[in-house]
């Protein structure tokens, strides 16, 4: 079949070249990615991982809007220097509700997979407004508008509904809500209920007071709420290190 096939046929036929290129690339995907969906122990069985609350989810959207991922990865690799600097290596389970995940490999700034709880809310606010005010040598840009812009949360329910179609267990019906109570407990399940999304978002921003100003819900509230939850869901003191080894 290939005997009379000439390289020239590909070089002179854009359509054919495109199809052949796609085919060659898809081999990589098929071999490296597809088996992960079949292999039993890809996803670690650990407690605590839950979908983001509406406020955190909006913060995550802003994180993507502002292009924070162009300088920050969220993937701590299992190497000793990373362990010492960033903490426990990231688990697959920890980003199972992330669509799209923020693993990345570009690290102009530090990895953020476990930045939650590392700093105070006040520090994040200062740092995002003007990074050099706390880290004089920083090359991170200023994001002052986050504090000035009221958060648009009118469509947060739709955003959660969209994520629901990708498999994130936000609940739209009473039955789904009951299921979430079983899986995550009542407190978390309430946060995942789409009909209450706006109410929950405002309540969390008010109670958390992330930006230090209770009078309005700003984009800063959402961003800091998101940053503060990163990497905090799994309690590693309850996980045996040798158990995680066996998921590879």
């Amino acid at each position, binding site marked *: 079949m290939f005997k009379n096939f000439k*390289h*020239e046929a590909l070089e*002179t036929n854009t359509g054919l070249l495109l199809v052949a290129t796609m085919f060659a690339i898809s081999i990589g995907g098929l*071999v490296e990615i597809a*088996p992960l969906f*079949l*292999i*039993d122990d890809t996803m670690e069985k650990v407690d605590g991982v839950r979908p983001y609350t509406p406020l955190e989810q909006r913060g995550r959207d802003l994180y993507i809007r502002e292009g924070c991922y162009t300088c920050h990865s969220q993937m701590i*690799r*299992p*190497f*000793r220097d990373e*362990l*010492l*600097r960033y*903490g426990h*290596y990231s688990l697959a389970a920890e980003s199972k509700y992330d669509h799209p995940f923020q693993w990345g490999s570009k690290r102009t700034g530090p990895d953020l997979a*476990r930045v939650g*709880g*590392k*700093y*105070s*809310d*006040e*520090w994040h606010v*200062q*740092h995002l407004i003007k990074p050099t005010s*706390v*880290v004089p040598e920083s090359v991170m840009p200023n994001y002052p508008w986050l504090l000035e812009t009221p958060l648009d949360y009118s469509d947060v329910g739709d955003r959660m509904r969209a994520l629901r179609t990708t498999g994130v267990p936000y609940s739209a019906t009473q039955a789904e809500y009951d299921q979430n109570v079983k899986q995550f407990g009542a407190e978390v399940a309430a946060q995942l209920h789409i009909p209450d999304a706006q109410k929950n978002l405002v309540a969390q921003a008010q109670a958390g007071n992330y930006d*230090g100003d209770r009078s309005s819900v700003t984009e800063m509230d959402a961003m800091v709420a998101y940053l503060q939850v990163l990497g905090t869901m799994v309690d*590693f*003191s309850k996980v*045996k*290190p*040798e158990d*995680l*080894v*066996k*998921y*590879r």
Partner: protein
Amino acid sequence: MANEQAQTQTHGSGGGVQTTGHVWDGTLQEFNNPLPVWWTYGFYITILFALVYWFFYPSWPVGTSFLKGVNTVTYVNQDGQEESWHWNTRAKLLGEVQAAKAEQKPWFDKIASLPYDKIATDPELNSFIQSAGKALFADNCAACHQTGGAGKIGHYPNLADDNWIYGGTFDKIRETILGGRHGYMPPYAEALDKGQVDTLANYVLSLSGEPHDASKAAEGKSLFHSHAAACYYCHGDNAQGRTDIGSANLTDKVWVWADVPGGQDANAKLAAVRNLINAGLNRGVMPAWEGRLSEEQVKVLTVYVHELGGGK
């Protein structure tokens, strides 16, 4: 343009070499030279390498599992038993961490067994603390406490002076690092009127020998010790603060929150203290590091921070 068939062209110096048949502008051709021998063999060697690699390391997916390779890594599990698992980066990391811990064990044993003041005077230990502590401090603490622990007035306390809000003993510093701190002072803007806050600010400034209005300060003094303001309740009868709740010592020249040193003139200094009394303090949070840093790392940092500030 391109000819249908590969052909042997004899043009210029390329005589006798096969071409791909492509000819542009009449003379420009694409030679089909064989690859250099070293390259071809290099290619075969990479294939051979892959075969050997498959034998030793995890490789091909098979059904719901994968080929694990014959290579193993040995580590110690939580029950203290040696365990082996097929080679993977997590197992390798676990083994490496344990090996490194064993290597550093003599140091940490020494630190644990020596009283803290002896650690500082042991030159070998001291240089270990200095180098390990410096790196840890830069990664975890300097973003707030700044390089060298110099701090930032109004936000993060200076750790390099001998003034300690929560106490400068090893135990207190360790407690601070492990559990974090969150000092709270209520806002007074609504509880007191402008004049009262002004007298209090004058009194606070008088305590540390800053310029002030003496008669207002006297008024502020009685307010400070009254039930109406109840400042004494947290800052103590002598206004020297209480390390258990981290209320600042108001009688020294060190300012953690009110930017008095940065005030250009007496008015600016007064305004700094007034604003603080009006707004109170609540945003100054020192995060808790328990669980985030290992026991050893906390120990190194405790000694490091203690020495930064000439602890007590």
